[in-house]
């Protein structure tokens, strides 16, 4: 769009009797502008080079492991790169499960906060609430990890036990090896679980998601809101018919963004889970895995080939996050609220 707005510096004097032909508009830039554009181009190219190099290097280093493992990289559950028996089936599923738990918990909470701030909160406290939520979104993840490890882990086993005994008929809530009728049953089967890690990550992403949703909800057109109310709608009716449809893009975009954050979270997960290299569907049971915590755990002691395998796992995580991010941005761009989130 801006190619047309460059100002022509020289206007050739029009001869009085010539036919009216369009003038040729050329741009002659000053030296400073040329230098400026060169700098801009260089920095753009530099960023492209850096980012491209990161991606290419990951692929290159991962190639060793990927070519040796072949398709079994996607189906193997174990992680013993040095004996050639490794794959991301278990850790990728573990990562997704943690992220799923996080999103399932975080999105309703975030939606509640976003709706509360944009629709229900008294005007007096609205601005401070917005600030609080945005500030919470910037709390370092290690703080959430601390809270999860030192506070939540010890207290949540009760809930996990109750969930598993009450809703044990739902397969993910089963906890193998637990016997609710045994008074001496150890609480350890409920610790270090996907569920707890997911809860911690949920608390981490909830403010981020809420902040994005709130931003979009407040943009819902005032005219339409008032129209709905004027037609006799209740507040919920107005929200359902005006705010939510308008903010659909923001809800989906925010959720996806939270999902992306949840997939990549390292430290909070590392502090909670006890790594197992088998697909662990039982989210309440001890043991889980995630790609990023695996990298944090194993990077130091890996052989060069093990490093390559870790790179491959990192690459898989990156690609998955990438797909989610692009899906989110395309959904958001097509929504009414636009690409603002």
């Amino acid at each position, binding site marked *: 769009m801006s190619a047309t707005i460059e100002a022509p510096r020289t206007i050739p004097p029009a001869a009085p009797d010539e036919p009216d032909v369009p003038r040729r508009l050329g741009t002659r830039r000053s030296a400073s502008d040329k230098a400026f554009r060169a700098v801009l*181009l260089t920095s753009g190219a530099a960023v492209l080079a850096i980012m491209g190099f990161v991606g290419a290097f990951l692929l290159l280093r991962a190639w060793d492991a990927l070519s040796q493992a072949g398709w079994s990289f996607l189906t193997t559950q174990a992680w013993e790169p040095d004996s050639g028996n490794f794959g991301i089936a278990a850790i990728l599923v573990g990562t997704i499960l943690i992220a799923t738990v996080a999103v399932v918990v975080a999105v309703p909470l975030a939606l509640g906060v976003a709706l509360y701030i944009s629709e229900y909160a008294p005007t007096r406290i609205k601005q401070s609430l917005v600030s609080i939520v945005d500030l919470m979104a910037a709390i370092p993840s290690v703080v959430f990890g601390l809270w999860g490890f030192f506070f939540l882990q010890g207290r949540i086993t009760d809930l996990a036990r109750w969930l598993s005994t009450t809703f044990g008929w739902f397969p993910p809530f089963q906890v193998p090896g637990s016997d609710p009728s045994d008074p001496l049953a150890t609480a350890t089967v409920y610790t270090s679980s996907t569920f707890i890690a997911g809860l911690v990550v949920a608390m981490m992403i909830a403010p981020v998601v809420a902040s994005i949703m709130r931003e979009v909800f407040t943009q819902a057109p005032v005219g339409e809101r008032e129209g709905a109310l004027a037609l006799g709608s209740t507040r919920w009716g107005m929200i359902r018919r005006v705010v939510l449809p308008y903010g659909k893009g923001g809800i989906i975009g925010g959720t996806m963004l939270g999902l992306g954050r949840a997939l990549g979270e390292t430290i909070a997960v590392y502090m909670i889970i006890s790594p197992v290299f088998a697909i662990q569907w039982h989210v309440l049971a001890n043991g889980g895995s995630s790609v990023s915590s695996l990298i944090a755990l194993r990077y130091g002691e890996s052989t060069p080939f093990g490093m390559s395998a870790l790179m491959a796992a990192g690459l898989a995580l990156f690609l998955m996050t990438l797909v989610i991010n692009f899906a989110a941005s395309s959904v958001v761009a097509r929504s009414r609220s636009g690409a603002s989130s």
Partner: protein
Amino acid sequence: MTTMAPARTEVRRQLTGVRVSDLLNLCGAGAAAIALTALLSSQLAPITSPLGFVAVATAVFLALYALLVSLTERGVAVRDRLVTVVVHGLAFTLLAVLVFIVVFTFARGASALPHLNFFTDDMAMAGPLDPLDVGGIAHAIVGTLIQISIALAITIPLGLLTAVFLSEMPGRFARLVRTVVEAMTALPSIVAGLFVYATLILALGVPKSGLAAATAISIMMLPIMVRSSDVVLRLVPGTLKEASYALGAGQLRTVWQVVLPTTRSGLTTAVILATARGIGETSPVLLTSGFTAAMNTNPTQGPMVSLPLAIFQFVKSPEPTMVARGFGTAAVLMLLVLTLFVVARVVGGSNPLKKDARRRAREQQRRARADHRARRAKRTSRPARTDQPVPQEQS
């Protein structure tokens, strides 16, 4: 009042208000829910978990509340009330938990924080058995500041220039750069750390140091900063730029005197949010900075600890004093992030967290205009891109 003059900005009406009967319904349902759940729990199936109790009580409460409201209201109103209660409940829960996390951190760190030496000493003279009045986290604070300064020195010029490049020199190449940058925002921070570990440290032989850590942080921050600055820059009205060009200004001059000043607060927000992310990330630092208990102000030589890494190391220890130090460090880190936001507000002239009233009014006008235009143009369902408000980039 319904015939509002079209020129006036629309203001949303306040819809809140409390009736006594609403309050009574709430209290009644609440009391009944607690009582009923307690009865169920004590007599029928023991609910061993307090949280489980709360969950059951909440469900019972909602049912009872719906029942109470339905005695006097019709279905639509009942749903409205229910949703109101649910939204309030969810909001309160999340905000309470988040505030609790912060308070918990401060409370557990409270034993470490009052000691002045906690802020002025490093851990070199403090062994695992030493009490809290020996040793501190000065080395981690300094390390964090040095690392983030280096990272900002790399990312601010590069990131802002690239963002300007994307908006000022559009074309196929810019689109490619934009796509790649957008893709790179998906790079998990640990992978950024792994990349630096594999290249700089293992392949090139750079020691684990503050510089390596700063590089890892930069790689993580750069795409975030470029993307959010780009979004901000795209919001500059084309008319402003055109006016500048029409007055004979060159591109550099236009960018310097029109584009950047217009977007100053937005850009500051972008930079600050990226900084907050960079400061708080543990994983890239974990792989690249090494660990030391002593002050190191030289980023090129020797390990340099930053605040998140110090937290991570402290809380691994079984010693209660070390854990208290870890929480104290976490509190300091949060204060640092808070300070950043305050600084951003002072420097940027407006709070980066919220659009100031003026801009919001402006935006609303813009939106109204855009809506008007859109309606005239047979109401296509998509408003023009230039009318997007400033986003809160979080990704």
